[in-house]
């Protein structure tokens, strides 16, 4: 059947089908992006923290704007070529459009990667520090070394592992020789595994025991801990025999043959002895109970098995309690049928806890099916021998202090330090400073808090940790801040001279909060250049201003690998003690609502670019047949695809100034 109005217009609307369809769709897209843009506006106006102004490097966004505008032009030309029946020309222009889409996504990918790799830290006094995190490696002797580059950390860990293995092999060989045996090489499980580096925004914890919640233990974290222990030739094993009851029949027998408490206890002891003497494997008992002998290694499948048993026991308990409650209410309603329920309640004994002990019938015999069983909800494992574990801050429930002796993960796993005899080998939280190369120090939030508390911002800033003697790099930061204050003071003067004051004597223009309180990477580079120059340039000289990087430097952000920056040590180091870190994150939605809305807007827009490119690619590669049969229909379809493409361009025309320039 021929679809009507794909080429000829309808008489009432004067339009062919796909045009109405695409405009309907675009109207819905206007609502979608309009809603998100308004989200941006409200998040910015009502943000309770200083909104990052001009935080994004402009150049990639600018190139992307040119790319998309160009692709809009070429898609129109592609449609025009089809209308004029010039197939080759259509192919060329469509190809350029799709290539532009590809370039857009590549640049977007570069921008995103730069953000995901950029560290931000908020300290407990609201200082914000940004930069690139260092990497650490744990050596075979437990020592932790820090490195600026990931490769160096990897290399150091590898070298250390090689040295350890060489030594271990030599020792094993010597031992084999004294015994007169052949030495076949060091077995794999005795080799130290290399490549064990971590990002210095994590915690190091050396536990004695680890307790897993059976209901909530998270598979990825359990496997990660097991793998870490394995790498350091350690393991998690159960410290004692554990018996988990899952089913009431095992526990108190059936209705015909109930068991008393004593009987249960005797049976349990017998079972434990029997299984402890036999194999060292976890063993299902009866229909649903589980026996785990001491020395069983940790694995997620073990936890899963134990979880099934635990949940069976827990649901049995809740059913039992419900049954008791129900029986009580039934009895009370029969005894006092005319009373309201709140009058009946005192007699109903709704506190079932009092009835959960041994149930006896009139003859004094134990009844079964009316008991709750004691259930095991956690499994405890010893780390043997205790080794440092790398724990991500995001896993931990609340800030861990050394004195806690315990770290609780968000899946209720508890890592415990050793006590008394074991405290030395298993001290718990190890020194875990957040080490990074800093490319921005932002005091704006601290200044905002100071003003709210009616204090002078500068006083509060200068009393902050980063300038105090507790920070071993404080000298560098004090010098930078001094130069920064000079520059801003001079800027203030210059603005006052140029624009004058109003009637009350206040200058008409003042430096922005961002300029006053934030030292961005351009500032740090400028000040490093000034210092390198022997402080010959001072604020006020043209030479001083010339030393500042222009907005087009640093393509997708401050480049820590840049030779000049590296030579000048423009980005200083910082080691923030663990307790002073309030929030650490990459430049991702976790960090603040600015990045949340940025990734939402640009991510959704990027998906639209990909979708549009796929449709246009379909027209480019798969439409020769349609062109031969019905070229006008194809032209209409390409026009409609082009309309979508223009819309995507329109959204970017608004996104670019809003996100990048404001």
């Amino acid at each position, binding site marked *: 059947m021929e679809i009507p109005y794909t*080429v000829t*217009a309808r008489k009432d*609307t*004067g*339009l062919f089908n796909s045009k*109405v369809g695409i*405009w*309907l769709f*675009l*109207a*819905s897209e*206007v*609502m979608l992006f*309009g*809603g998100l843009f*308004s989200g941006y*506006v*409200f998040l910015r106006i009502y943000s*309770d923290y200083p909104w990052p*102004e*001009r935080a994004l490097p*402009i150049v990639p966004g*600018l190139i992307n*704007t*040119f790319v998309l*505008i160009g692709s*809009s*032009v070429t898609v*129109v*030309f592609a449609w*025009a070529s089809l*209308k*004029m*029946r010039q197939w080759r020309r259509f192919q060329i222009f469509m190809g350029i459009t799709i290539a532009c889409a590809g370039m857009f996504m590549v640049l977007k990918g570069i921008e995103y990667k730069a953000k995901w790799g950029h560290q931000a830290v*908020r300290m*407990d006094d609201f200082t914000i520090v940004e930069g690139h995190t260092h990497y650490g490696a744990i050596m075979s002797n437990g020592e932790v070394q820090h490195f600026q580059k990931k490769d160096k950390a990897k290399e150091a860990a590898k070298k250390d592992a090689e040295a350890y293995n060489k030594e271990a092999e030599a020792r094993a060989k010597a031992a084999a020789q004294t015994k007169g045996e052949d030495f076949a090489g060091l077995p794999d499980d005795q080799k130290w595994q290399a490549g064990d580096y971590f990002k210095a925004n994590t915690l190091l914890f050396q536990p004695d025991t680890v307790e897993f919640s059976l209901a909530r233990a998270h598979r990825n974290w359990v496997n990660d801990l097991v793998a870490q222990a394995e790498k350091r030739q350690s393991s998690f094993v159960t410290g004692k025999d554990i018996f988990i009851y899952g089913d009431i029949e095992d526990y108190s027998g059936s209705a015909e043959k109930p068991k008393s408490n004593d009987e249960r206890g005797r049976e349990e002891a017998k079972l434990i002895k029997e299984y402890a003497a036999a194999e060292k494997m976890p063993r299902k008992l009866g229909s649903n109970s589980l026996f785990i002998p001491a020395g069983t290694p940790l694995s997620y499948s073990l936890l899963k098995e134990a979880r099934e048993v635990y949940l069976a026991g827990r649901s049995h308990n809740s059913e039992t309690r419900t049954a008791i409650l129900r029986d009580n209410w039934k009895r009370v309603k029969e005894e006092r049928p005319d009373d309201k329920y709140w009058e009946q309640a005192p007699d109903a004994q709704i506190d079932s806890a009092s009835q959960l002990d041994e149930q006896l019938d009139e003859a004094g015999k134990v009844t079964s099916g009316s008991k709750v069983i004691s259930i095991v909800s956690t499994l405890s494992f010893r780390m043997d021998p205790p080794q440092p574990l790398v724990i991500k*801050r995001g896993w931990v429930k609340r*800030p861990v202090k050394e004195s806690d002796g315990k770290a609780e993960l968000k899946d209720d796993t508890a890592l415990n330090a050793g006590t008394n005899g074991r405290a030395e080998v298993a001290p718990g939280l190890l020194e875990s400073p957040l080490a990074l190369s800093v490319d921005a120090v932002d005091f704006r939030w601290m200044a905002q808090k100071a003003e709210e508390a009616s204090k002078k911002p500068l006083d509060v800033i200068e009393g902050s940790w980063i300038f105090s003697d507790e920070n071993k790099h404080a000298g560098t930061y004090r010098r930078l801040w001094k130069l920064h204050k000079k520059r801003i003071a001079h800027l203030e003067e210059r*603005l006052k001279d140029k624009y004058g004051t109003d009637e009350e004597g206040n200058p008409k*223009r*003042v*430096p*922005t909060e*961002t*300029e006053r309180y934030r030292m961005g990477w351009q500032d740090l580079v400028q000040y490093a250049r000034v210092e390198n120059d022997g402080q010959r340039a001072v604020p006020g000289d043209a030479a001083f201003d010339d030393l500042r990087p222009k*907005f087009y430097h640093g393509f997708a952000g401050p480049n820590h690998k840049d030779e000049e920056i590296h030579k000048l040590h423009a980005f200083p180091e910082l080691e923030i003690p663990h307790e002073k*870190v*309030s*929030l*650490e994150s990459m430049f991702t939605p976790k960090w603040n609502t600015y990045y949340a809305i940025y990734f939402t807007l640009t991510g959704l827009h990027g998906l639209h670019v990909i979708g549009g490119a796929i449709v246009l690619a379909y027209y480019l590669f798969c439409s020769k047949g349609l062109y031969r049969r019905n070229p*006008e229909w194809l032209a209409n379809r390409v026009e409609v695809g082009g309309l979508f493409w*223009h819309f995507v361009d*329109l959204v970017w*025309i*608004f996104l*670019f*100034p*809003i996100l990048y*320039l*404001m």
Partner: protein
Amino acid sequence: MADTPEDIKNAQKKYLLIGLILFIFTVVTVAVATVPWLDFGEHGFDGIDAVIGLLIASVKATLVGAIFMHLNHEKRTIYGLIVLGVLMGLCLVVLTGWAFIDPIEYGSPVEGDGFYNPPETVNQ
């Protein structure tokens, strides 16, 4: 078919010109935002800079819409659909704004402090 092949042939020069104008306006947007002597209003980013930026963006959007998307000679149905979409979008904005001016939640001179108070200290 609103556009005949002849019309389209003549329009190509126009498309190229509009493309060039869009490029120029992009440069203007960046210049207004980065060049110090083009900074209107307060020093740094303030309301007037937002207005100028959005104005230039609107001009660009109008050019793309009118000429590339053929809206300058489109049928009434389409105009109706667009207006409907924009109106609905505005409703979304108004609804959100309405929530934010709620005095019970956010406070007002008459109602006093709202019960929404941003946290004093934030800890992870």
